[in-house]
C-alpha cells in the first residue's frame, strides 16, 4: 500500500484517477482503518486529504457555511455560529463515536462510508446540504441525499472526492433537530433515527419542512409526506400524528437482533415527532 498526502485538490484527484488499483480517500480514518484491519479492505493507495488547503476550514458563504471535508466532529462542535444556524446537524455529528473518534471523524467520511445508520447523514439531508465534488473533469455540486446509493456504495466516480459540504442560509424562525435510538447512552450504532428541519412564519405556522430518516432503509430516506404533514400546521397533535404515520409508512427496515421491523417503525415515528418539537422550539428561540 502507498500513502500520499497531496497539498492540492488537483493532485489528489489525479492520484485517485490514475491509480490502477483500489484507491481510497483518507479523512479521519475512523471507518477506513477499522475496515483495513478487520474488514478485509486492502487498498493500494490512500490519499490523505487533510493537508490540502481549505479542507479544515468552516467558511461563511451566502449567509450559510461551507464545511471543509476534513473538519472533524470536535471542530464542528466548537464552531458556535454553525451550531446556532444548524444545531441539528452539529448535534448529529457530535453523536458519532467517542471523544477520541470525534477528534478525527468527518461528516464527509460519514457520508462516503455510506452506512445506512450514519448519524450525520439524515441531519444533512434534512438541512438540504450540498456536497461539492472535485474530479478529473472539474468541480460539481450534488445534494447530499444523492451521494449514498446502497450500503457501502456512493455515486462518486473514479477520481472524484468531496471537498466541502455547504449548509445554506435560513430565515430567523427556522431550525432543526436530530434524534437517534440506541440501547445505550453513548457509543452505539443507530437502530433508527430522524432529522427534521423546519421554518415557521410569524404566527408559528410551519411554512417549510424536510424530514429524513436513518437506519430504516438501504439509504437515508427523505420523506415528502412527512414534511407535508407539518407544512401549514402549528405542529398540533393531529399534525404530529400524521407526521409519525408518514414516517412509519416510509420505513423499510431490516429485522435484526438490534431491532425488529415493528420496533423500528414505531420508534422512528416517535423520534420524528420529538425531533419536530425540538426544531419548533429552537426556531421559536431564534425568531
Amino acid at each position, binding site marked *: *500500500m*502507498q*500513502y500520499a*498526502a497531496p497539498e492540492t485538490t488537483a493532485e489528489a484527484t489525479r492520484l485517485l484517477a490514475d491509480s490502477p488499483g483500489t484507491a481510497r480517500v*483518507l479523512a*479521519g*480514518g*475512523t471507518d477506513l*482503518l*477499522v475496515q*483495513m*484491519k*478487520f474488514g478485509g479492505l486492502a487498498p493500494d493507495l*490512500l490519499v*490523505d486529504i*487533510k493537508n490540502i488547503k481549505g479542507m479544515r476550514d468552516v467558511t461563511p458563504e451566502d449567509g450559510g457555511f461551507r464545511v471543509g471535508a476534513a473538519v*472533524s466532529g*470536535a471542530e464542528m462542535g466548537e464552531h458556535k455560529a454553525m451550531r446556532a444556524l444548524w444545531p441539528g446537524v452539529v448535534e448529529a455529528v457530535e453523536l458519532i*463515536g*467517542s*471523544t*477520541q*473518534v470525534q*477528534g*478525527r471523524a468527518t461528516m464527509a467520511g460519514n457520508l462516503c462510508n455510506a452506512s445506512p445508520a450514519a448519524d450525520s447523514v439524515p441531519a444533512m439531508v434534512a438541512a438540504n446540504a450540498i456536497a461539492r465534488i472535485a474530479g478529473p473533469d472539474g468541480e460539481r455540486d450534488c445534494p447530499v441525499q444523492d451521494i449514498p446509493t446502497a450500503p457501502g456504495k456512493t455515486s462518486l466516480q473514479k477520481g472524484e472526492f468531496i471537498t466541502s459540504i455547504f449548509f445554506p442560509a435560513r430565515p430567523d424562525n427556522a431550525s432543526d433537530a436530530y434524534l437517534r435510538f440506541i440501547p445505550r*447512552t*453513548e*457509543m452505539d450504532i443507530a437502530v433508527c433515527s430522524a432529522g427534521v428541519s423546519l421554518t415557521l412564519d410569524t404566527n408559528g405556522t410551519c411554512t417549510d419542512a424536510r424530514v429524513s430518516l436513518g437506519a430504516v432503509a438501504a439509504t437515508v430516506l427523505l420523506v415528502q409526506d412527512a414534511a407535508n404533514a407539518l407544512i401549514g400546521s402549528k405542529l398540533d397533535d393531529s399534525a404530529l400524528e400524521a407526521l409519525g404515520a408518514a414516517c412509519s409508512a416510509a420505513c423499510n427496515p431490516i429485522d435484526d437482533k438490534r431491532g425488529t421491523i415493528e420496533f423500528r417503525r414505531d420508534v422512528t415515528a416517535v423520534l420524528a415527532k420529538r425531533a419536530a418539537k425540538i426544531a419548533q422550539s429552537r426556531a421559536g428561540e431564534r425568531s
Partner: protein
Amino acid sequence: MKKLHINTSINGNSAEFLCDPDATLLSVLRDQLNLTGAKEGCGSGDCGACSVTVNGRLVASCLVLAAEVEGAEITTIEGMAEGEVLHPLQKKFLEHAALQCGVCTPGILVAAKALLEKNPDPSETEVRFWLAGNLCRCTGYDKIINAVMDAAAEMRGA
C-alpha cells in the same frame, strides 16, 4: 513496502522514525519507539486504551496512521509526570484506587487530562460522557470518575 521517513514531536522532544505506510501510530509508539504506555485493547477505536493527543486533539492512536503525524505534536502518557513528580490526576488515581489491572489507566489519564485542559470544572455527567470511549473491565468506573473530579478540584485550587 517502501518505508516512509517521519519527523514529529513526542512529549516536546523531536522524534523521527521509518514506518510502513499502513503502520498505525500506536504500533510505532509501542514497537519502535518503546513508548509502551498506550495499550492496544481493541485496535478498532472502541476501548480508548491507546489514547494520545495529536496537535492537542484526543485521538485513538490505533486509528491514526504513523504516516499522518509528519510535523505533528504528539503527547502520550509518558509525558504526563514531570520526572518523579506525578500529575495531580495520577496522584488522585492512586489515592482513590481508581485502577486494578491498569490496562485502561494510561488512556484514561490522557483523556482526562485533555478534558481538564478544555474544561477545568466539568460536571460528573460531563466527565462520564467525555470518558465514554475509555472502557475499563475492572473498576466499575465510579472510582475513576471520583478521581477525575477530585483532581479537577485540586487543580482549580479548590
